[in-house]
């Protein structure tokens, strides 16, 4: 029995998987399931029957993309056979701008100078007393500084009537306050330094913190001077405070008296004159006078 006729008819129903006639081969980015066709469009064909041409073009390109995908390594799963897509090669622009670099804290600066590197420590540590793993810090952590001890030995040389639990609580609170103060100082210094060192920040680098302290001082002095001038009399009738800052006056600056050539000054004067009198000067004809003259002639 000859089935070649039937096979041929069946084959005719589908289009060929191989696409020909592409002068420039397509570029693929299979990670994003994308193909780029750089070939020029046949304009005559496009004008003649637009839809048909575009459909066939996209069909061909889709076929080429699927051909590529079918050559990828595959894995079989319960869900079927799947192709492993490579990592995308096309760089897509970031949606949001890069975050501004954070200014260095004092500790970071010190650690960098000393070469101290932060070691990664596990979050959970073994607690010998309970025989359990507990967080290093935070809720149910082990850093409660013994405030949960059921008995505390009174240290020698202290008042025996003093509440040692309270003393520990106070000490902890003090440490927290101190740390908070330093954090605040870091924030202020960082803000001032990044304001003063905009060039570096714009480059996407950390601002120069070398003289953050003097910068902060200057900033505060500026603010004091502004606040002093912000009274109803612009600071004129305010009582002078001893050791108060004196505002530095703005130095007036004048052109040099004698220059090698006075033509520059002359040109400057001329341009001012143009502005004062008007570029074209007064009208060549005195219009009112002219009107009067013609009227009287009549």
């Amino acid at each position, binding site marked *: 029995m000859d089935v070649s006729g039937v096979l041929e008819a069946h084959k005719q129903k589908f289009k060929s998987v191989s696409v020909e006639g592409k002068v420039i081969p397509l570029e693929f980015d299979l990670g994003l399931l994308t193909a780029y066709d750089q070939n020029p469009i046949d304009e005559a064909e496009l004008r003649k029957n637009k839809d048909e041409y575009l459909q066939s073009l996209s069909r061909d390109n889709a076929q080429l993309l699927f051909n590529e995908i079918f050559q990828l390594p595959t894995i079989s799963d319960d869900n079927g056979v799947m192709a492993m897509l490579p990592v995308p090669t096309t760089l897509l622009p970031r949606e949001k701008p890069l975050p501004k670099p954070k200014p260095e804290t004092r500790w970071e600066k010190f650690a960098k100078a000393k070469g101290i590197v932060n070691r990664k420590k596990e979050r959970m540590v073994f607690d010998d007393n309970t025989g359990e793993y507990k967080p290093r810090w935070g809720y149910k952590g082990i850093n409660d500084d013994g405030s949960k001890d059921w008995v505390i030995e009174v240290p020698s040389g202290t008042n025996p009537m003093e509440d040692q639990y309270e003393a520990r609580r106070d000490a902890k609170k003090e440490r927290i306050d101190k740390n908070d103060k330093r954090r605040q100082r870091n924030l202020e210094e960082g803000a001032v330094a990044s304001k003063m060192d905009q060039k570096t920040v714009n480059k996407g680098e950390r601002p120069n913190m070398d003289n953050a302290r003097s910068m902060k001082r200057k900033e505060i002095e500026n603010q004091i001077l502004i606040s002093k001038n912000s009274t109803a009399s612009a600071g004129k009738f305010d009582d002078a405070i001893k050791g108060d800052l004196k505002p530095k006056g703005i130095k007036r600056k*004048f*052109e*040099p*008296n*004698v220059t090698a050539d*006075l033509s520059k*000054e*002359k040109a*400057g*004067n*001329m341009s*001012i*004159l143009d*502005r*004062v*009198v008007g570029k074209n*000067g*007064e009208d060549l004809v*005195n219009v*009112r*006078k002219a009107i*009067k003259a013609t009227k009287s002639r009549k």
Partner: protein
Amino acid sequence: MRPLTELETKTFFEKLAKYIGRNITHLIDRGDETYCFRLHRDRVYYVSESVMRKATSVGRDQLISLGICFGKFTKTGKFRMHVTCLEYIAQYAKHKVWIKPNGEMPFLYGNHVVKAHIGRVTEDTPEHQGVIVYSMTDVPLGFGVTARSTSDTRKMEPTAIVVFHQADIGEYLRQEDTLF
């Protein structure tokens, strides 16, 4: 002694332009020698370059005057013209007033010019225009500002003021010590 700042030059030129208009160009750009404006103790001096260069060797406190004094800046920043500049603005004046011999004396004593004393006026002078006052023999006597336009003066009484006094050559005697 220093050159004028831009703002000072502007106020100065605005006042000067009331009298000579665009003819200020002839003061800045002269054919014979380079002249410049210099400020010294609030006064504006019109001085040739060579004299100005020589004057730089005189101390600020010792320098009394140089060139021609055109006027001075008041403490509120306005500019007031002195009679010493009369020679220059009379050359380039746009509007002039001639006064009769009987009106010369009152004007030179610092009074305004009344209509009765007017001999001749430049035709079509507008209101509040800087004018140079001449005697009938064409000697510049001073300058002032018109109170009314020429056409309006015709209807006025003979005793009405026509030109407000600004400066006159009598000041050479009256204000001898502060003028230069």
